[in-house]
Structure formats: C-alpha cells, structure tokens
C-alpha cells in the first residue's frame, strides 16, 4: 500500500471515491458504511477524521463529525478503525481526511509512521495548502504516501502550476466555490475548470463537493479521473447501512459504466 497503489487504481479507469466520516453515527456503523461502499465497488475510500471546527464543511458533515466527536472518536481511534478494516482484508486505497490541528496534536511524524504501518495510502488535509505543507510533505515522501492538494475554481494559473508540480497521487478539484454538501446541480463551468487543470498536469484529477447522485456522478465521470461523494452518503448513513449501499451502488454503476 503506497502511492503506487493509488496510481494503479486510477490507471484502471475512473474511480469512485466515497468519503465516510469515521465514528458516525456510531463507530461500528461507520465501519459498516465503509464495508458497504467497498462491496459496491468503491475504488478508494476517504476516511474522515473528526474536528471540532470543520470550516470547509457544510451542515451535513459538520453534524456528522460533531457526533463522531461525541462518540469519543480521536485520531488514534480512526487509525485503529482503519487497521481493523485492513485486517478484514479490505485492500482498496485508504486516505485519511481531516483538518490539521488534530493531526498536529497527534504529532505528524507519529501519524505518518502509524498510517504507513497500517497501510493507509495517503492524507487529505483541507487546511494545509502546499505553502504550509513542507514538513508533512517530507514525511509522506519518506514513507511513500500521497499528500493530496486541492485546486478550486478560484485557483489562478500560478497556483495550478504550483499544485501540479507538488501533486502526488491525485489532485482534489473542488467543483464549486463553497463548502461541502450535495447541490441540486453541478456548476456550469466545471468542465472548463477541469480542462484548465488537465492542461497543466498528467496527475489524475478527482472532483468532489456537491456531487449527490448517479446522474451527477456520471456527468463528472465524463471528464474527471475520480468522483468523490461525501455529504449525500453521510445523509444515508443517518438512515441505515442499506441506504448507504443503495446510493453507493447507483453511483458506482454510473462511474464505472463509462
């Protein structure tokens, strides 16, 4: 499990990449959600680590991660949950997704070492732009893990070049200017935005934020290498694992049918 695993995954075709907040609605139910999305054919899973002040997230993920905190979920527990999933034989790439402060409190060096040991493949940290990522970047390189950077519709050509140069694994394209959360429709300018980044890099491009159903996922899969779905699945997590499975299946089919 390394950066290479992520690269191989993208080489096989467009990837379905669900985000599952660990610990929501309960720790065990969140593990069931991961099992369910993997069973439907998810190619990679973002495991959400809760933070008290998730400023890039909309109400759905805010509420879910708040509940996870109330359930006593910590970075340590997230690592244990990931290890448990690996022990069950789930082999798709895992990315830990969380805000910087809990990771700093855990200690970046400890974190990356522990992650590498339990075969986590990389990190997504929304409040860590490349300018501030020196230490984390070096640690991830040392252990051959991905550190995923973002680009947004507001990103200038200079920033696209900067991220293109630093990116390893894939680049996370934020589909809209805003916070996470399902939307009624995709941004009209999304294809042009993806094309703009595509012109600057060969690194796979995964699109996230605002993608909520199979139809939207199919649209995005036409021009992206990965389709990330978070809030829509999180809403289903409040209902049941079966509901998660049903939506994940719909999206997986849309993404993989192309």
């Amino acid at each position, binding site marked *: 499990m390394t950066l290479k695993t992520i690269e191989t995954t993208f080489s096989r075709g467009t990837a379905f990449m669900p985000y599952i907040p660990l610990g929501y609605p309960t720790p065990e139910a969140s593990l069931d959600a991961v099992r369910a999305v993997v069973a439907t054919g998810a190619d990679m899973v973002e495991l959400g680590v809760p933070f008290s002040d998730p*400023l890039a997230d909309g109400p759905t993920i805010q509420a879910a991660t708040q509940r996870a905190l109330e359930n006593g979920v910590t970075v340590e527990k997230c690592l244990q949950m990931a290890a448990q999933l690996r022990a069950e034989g789930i082999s798709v790439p895992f990315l830990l997704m969380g805000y910087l402060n809990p990771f700093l409190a855990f200690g970046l060096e400890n974190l990356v070492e522990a992650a590498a040991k339990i075969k986590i493949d990389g990190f997504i940290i929304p409040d860590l732009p490349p300018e501030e990522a020196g230490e984390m970047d070096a640690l991830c390189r040392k252990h051959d893990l991905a550190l995923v950077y973002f680009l947004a519709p507001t990103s200038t050509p200079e920033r696209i070049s900067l991220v293109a140069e630093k990116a390893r694994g894939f680049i996370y394209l934020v589909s809209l200017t*805003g916070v996470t959360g399902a939307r009624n429709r995709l941004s009209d300018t999304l294809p042009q935005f993806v094309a703009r980044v595509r012109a600057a890099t060969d690194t796979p491009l995964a699109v996230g934020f605002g993608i909520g159903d199979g139809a939207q996922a199919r649209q995005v899969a036409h021009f992206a290498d990965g389709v990330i779905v978070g809030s829509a699945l999180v809403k289903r997590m409040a209902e049941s694992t079966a509901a998660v499975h049903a939506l994940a299946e719909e999206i997986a089919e849309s993404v993989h049918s192309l």
Partner: protein
Amino acid sequence: MNITHAVDGKFGPYGGQFVPETLMPALAELESAYAAAIADPEFMAEFEHLLKTYVGRESPLTFARRLTDHLGGAKIYLKREDLNHSGAHKINNALGQALLAKRMGKTRIVAETGAGQHGVGTATACALLGLDAIIYMGTVDIARQQPNVYRMKLLGAEVRPVESGSKTLKDAINEAIRDWVTNVETTHYLLGSVLGPHPYPTIVRDFQAVIGREARRQILDAEGRLPDTLIACVGGGSNAIGLFQAFLDDENVAMIGVEAGGLGIESGKHAARFADPDRARLGVLHGTRSFVLQTADGQIMETHSVSAGLDYPSVGPQHALLRDVERAGYTFATDDEALEAFHLLSRLEGIIPALESAHAVAEAIKRAPKMSKNDIIIVNLSGRGDKDLDTVIKLTADSH
C-alpha cells in the same frame, strides 16, 4: 527575529496561511490590494480624514487622578478608545478594511462578532460606505449582548445567529469563513482581530496602530517622557497590538497583555492561552498557527469569560512572538477581578469600561501600588461598558 513585521506571512514560527485552497487566491488578492492601498496617498488621506471627522480621533489620553490616588502608586493614564464613534477601538480597523473592500470592488462584507463591538463597528462602516453587511454571531453571545445586536440591525446589517459548536466567537468565525468561501468573488471578509491567515494579522494591526502612535505623542506632551508600562486586554489581541506597535523599539517601555482568566486557570473555564500550558499548545485554528486551547486530541476547547470579546481559544501570532522574545509579558485577570475593576473605574473616574477593557484595568490595580509614584502606566481603555450593563446587573444581582 523581526518582531514588528511579518516575514513571508509569519511572525517567527507563528501565523501563516492554513486555509482551504478556494481562499488562497483571495488572500493573495487582499495582500496585493492592501499593499497598493497603503502606498496610495489618496487612500490613506481618506482613511485619516474619516478617523478624524467620523470616528472623532484622536482619542484623548486621560489622567486617572482618583484611581491613581486610590492605588497610591504609579500614575495611571487611560487611552480613551471608548470615546470613539461606536464605542470601541474596533471601528478603526472596520473603517480601514471597509475602505479597502470598496477599493477592491467588493460590495458585500461578512464579519464575525463576539461582544458585538466589531459587529457594530463593521455595520457602522458599511452604513457609511454603502456596503452590505452580514454579521455572524453565536447565539450565546447574542443572548448576552442584546443591545449590540439591536444596534447592528439599526445600522442596516443582517445578524445571522450561529448555532454550531460552542455558539460563541470561534463558531461565528467558522461561519463567516464558510460564507466567504462560498461568496469570495463578491465578498470581503472583514476580520476583526489580529488573527486568521496572513495578511489579516498585519492589516488589522496596521489599522489599529494609530492607538499607540497617538498615545506615544500624547504622553510625551503630558509628561515629557515615555511611559514605563503599557497594559491592554488580549482576546485576539488587536487593541493590545494597536497600543504596543508604536512602542516596540522603546526598550524601556514594558508591555503587558491581559487575558481572560475566567473562573480561574485551574477551573479550565477561561480564555488564557498563555497561562495554561496543560490546555494551550501550539496549534492551528482559523488559518493561523499560534497557541490554541485544545484537548489532548487536538479538538478546540470551549472557552469562558465574562467578556464576550475575550472569549476565544487562540491568540494573534504577533503576540505569541512578542511573548517568546520577552518583548511583552502576558498575564490574566479573572471574571471577578474584571468586575471589581469595572465598578471601581466607574465610581472613581466616571468611566464605565467595557468588561474586556476592565481586564486591563484590573491588572493596573494589581500593579500600580507596587510601582513608584513617578512611574507611568498607560491602560488601553479599548471600549465602553454600556453593552455590558445587562451582564453586570445580572451578575451583581446573583451575588446578593
């Protein structure tokens, strides 16, 4: 180590730009627009004109004769930011940034507020300049600062209640940032303290530095010499840095920042980031690296202070550096000490201070009696206390 200015967006190891990618271009745009604005004599002339004719600057430096006599030690001067239009130092920065936003072509302003003073300052500046103002405020703060909520609405601002997290200042900042992320093309985030990602700690500091420039000149006029000690309360730290900045090169002027000690450090119910090494560690909150009150797992702690304006779990990065290099010292005053100072200043000087500023007065009360009668203290009276009457009446009734 450069203690007066940020280098590459950082004050020593503190500061930086820990924000989502969507905002990185906006910060770059803000940085270059700000640099161009302060190099433009017309912009600065307009700012200074408004500070004079609208805010009512310069604010007086008042010798607190009866307080000084009562304490029997150092002479105490009060820098009267409470006399600014809208009642606190916050208007200095709000006007500066609103002018900057207008120059950048932004039509919509979002801001957070805790005590409501920054919200009122922002609403005031936006009314004056014809900008839309949306103010995010935690519901806990809305409950304890009703007069300011009403004031903001009168001034034409929309006050959006924030129900998430601890429902105080930090959560209001989260919501303001989420709004900014969503509406970044049209919207300027008018951050109210020396916090957040670069360039905010620099911009806010610069717009507040007028406090210290005036105070330095005024004390030289009044006493023919510089003060021995400056005292200011520190929430995010904008009034303190505003006072300190002009004195940083004056080696013999001591500087004391006063944090909110709440119910006492041991209680854990406080906002004293520098006084509680068990709970406050280096971390990242709202885009900046500084000392942050947090759990062992890196979750941000809820803070407590009788004054909403000091009720914040992190502190401006320049303060963290000034403390490291021992250019400024930091202490705290408890809720009780602040309330005592609130009453004492009201009775002895006829000045009702904001509960935030009362923390600085409380430190002067502790310190002045131990100093010589020839020594001089300047206390930054950062705001007036009208907004706090409900809180004080309730607390006074509870204790009788």
